[in-house]
C-alpha cells in the first residue's frame, strides 16, 4: 500500500464510520425526530399520552367554530384517514384557513387536542391567485369525492368522514393533501416498533 492509498483508505474509513454511526443514531432517535404526529399515528397509539406533542394535518373544511367575543377556536384536523378535534385559544397565523395544513402543539385529553400553539404548514406549490382560482373550481365540483380532499369546499367532510387516502391528484389541486401524504409514505408499514 502506498502512503497515498493508505490516506485514501483512512479518509474513506472515517466517512463510512461517521455515516454508519449517524444512520444508527438517527434510527434510534427516530420517534424523537418526528416533528409532529398525524391523526392516524395518534390513533395507533404512537403519540405520548403523558406529555405535550404536536399534531399535524389539514383543517377539515366547515369545522372551524369560533366563540364570539373571545380568541377561542375549535376545528378538526384530518389526514384523510383519521380526524381529531382541536381546541385553541390565541392568535392564528395568516395562512390558517379551511383546508390548510396546520401543526398544533399541546396535549390530548378525552379525545380532544388542547393546543397552546398553532402553526401553519406551507406546501411546496406556488401560483398566482388567478391560476389558483381556476384550478380550484373544477376540482371542487367534479373530483371532490375521489380526491378525498378538496381545498375550501364545505361540501366535503365532516369531522370523521373516513375519506379514502388521496389517490393520484391533478397537479397543484391536491397540493395540500400531498404535503401530508409525503409523511404517510415514509411511515414504516409495520407501525410503532
Amino acid at each position, binding site marked *: 500500500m502506498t502512503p497515498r492509498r493508505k490516506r485514501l483508505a483512512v479518509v474513506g474509513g472515517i466517512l463510512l464510520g461517521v455515516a454508519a454511526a449517524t444512520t444508527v443514531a438517527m434510527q434510534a432517535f427516530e420517534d424523537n425526530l418526528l416533528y409532529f404526529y398525524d391523526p392516524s399515528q395518534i390513533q395507533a397509539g404512537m403519540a405520548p399520552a403523558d406529555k405535550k406533542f404536536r399534531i399535524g394535518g389539514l383543517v377539515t373544511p366547515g369545522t372551524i367554530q369560533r366563540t364570539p367575543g373571545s380568541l377561542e377556536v375549535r376545528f378538526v384536523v384530518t389526514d384523510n384517514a383519521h380526524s381529531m378535534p382541536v381546541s385553541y385559544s390565541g392568535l*392564528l397565523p395568516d*395562512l390558517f384557513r379551511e383546508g390548510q395544513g396546520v401543526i398544533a402543539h399541546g396535549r390530548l385529553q378525552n379525545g380532544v387536542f388542547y393546543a397552546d400553539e398553532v402553526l401553519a*404548514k406551507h406546501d411546496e406549490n406556488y401560483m398566482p391567485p388567478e391560476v389558483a382560482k381556476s384550478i380550484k373550481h373544477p376540482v371542487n365540483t367534479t373530483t371532490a369525492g375521489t380526491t378525498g380532499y378538496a381545498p375550501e369546499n364545505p361540501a366535503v367532510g365532516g369531522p370523521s368522514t373516513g375519506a379514502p387516502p388521496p389517490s393520484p391528484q391533478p397537479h397543484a389541486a391536491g397540493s395540500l393533501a400531498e404535503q401530508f401524504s409525503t409523511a404517510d409514505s415514509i411511515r414504516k408499514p409495520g407501525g410503532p416498533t
Partner: protein
Amino acid sequence: MATWTWFHKLASPPHFYRIAGTLTPWLAIPAALLIVGGVYGGLVRAPADYQQGDAFRIVYVHAPSAWLSLMCYTYMAIAAAVGLIWRIKLAHAVAAATAPIGASFAFVCLATGSLWGKPMWGTWWEWDARLTSQLILLFLYLGYMALRNAFDDLQRADRASAVLAIVGVVNVPIIHFSVYWWNSLHQGRTVLKEGGPGMPPEMLIPLLMCFFGFTLMYGALLCVRVRGEVLIRERNAAWLKQLGAPRAA
C-alpha cells in the same frame, strides 16, 4: 500518469493564481447580470402567490442561498479530502477559501427563512429537522473556521480542519432529505419536485436565474479568495516576488 498532468498543473500555485485572475471577471459579470435579472423578475415582474402574497418573494434569495450553502460545504469537503489524500496545498487553500462564503450563504438562508416563517408559519424558529440540521451546518462552518484559526502552523491547520470538513459532510444529505424522512414544518422541494416544478414559469424563470447567478457569484468569490490564500501561503516564494517586483519598483 500522463492524464494527471493537467491536474498537477492546476494545482501549482502560480498557475492557479493566474487562471483564477483571468477567470474572475468571466464569472462575476454573468453572475451580476443573472442576479439583477432574477431579482427584477422575481420582485417586480412575477405575480404574487395565491396564499402567501408578496411574502413568497423571499424565495428568490432564500432558496439559492440554501442551495449554495449545501454546495459550498460539499465542495469544501471534497477539496479537504483531496488535500489530505494527495497532499495538495492548493486544495486546502480552496477549502479554506470556501468556508466563509458557505457560512454567509447558510446565515442568509436561516435569516431569510426566519423572516418568512414569522408571518407564514406563525413562528420565527422551530426545532424542526430541516431547520435544526441547517443550523448545524452553519455551526460546522463556524467550527471549521475557528479550528483553522486555532493553529499557528498552516499545515497542521489544514489537516485538522480537513478532518472536520469530511466528518461534517454527513450532514449535507440529512439537510436535503430531512423534509422527506421526518414529518417536518418545512415544505418539500419546489423546483426539483417529482412531476415538474410546483411553480409557473413566470415565477420559476427568475428563480432559476438567481440559482445560476448565485452559483457563478460563488465561483467569482472563490477565485478572489483563493488568490488571497495563495498570496498568504506563498508569500516567500520566488515566483511571487518576481510578480510583485515591477509594481514595487
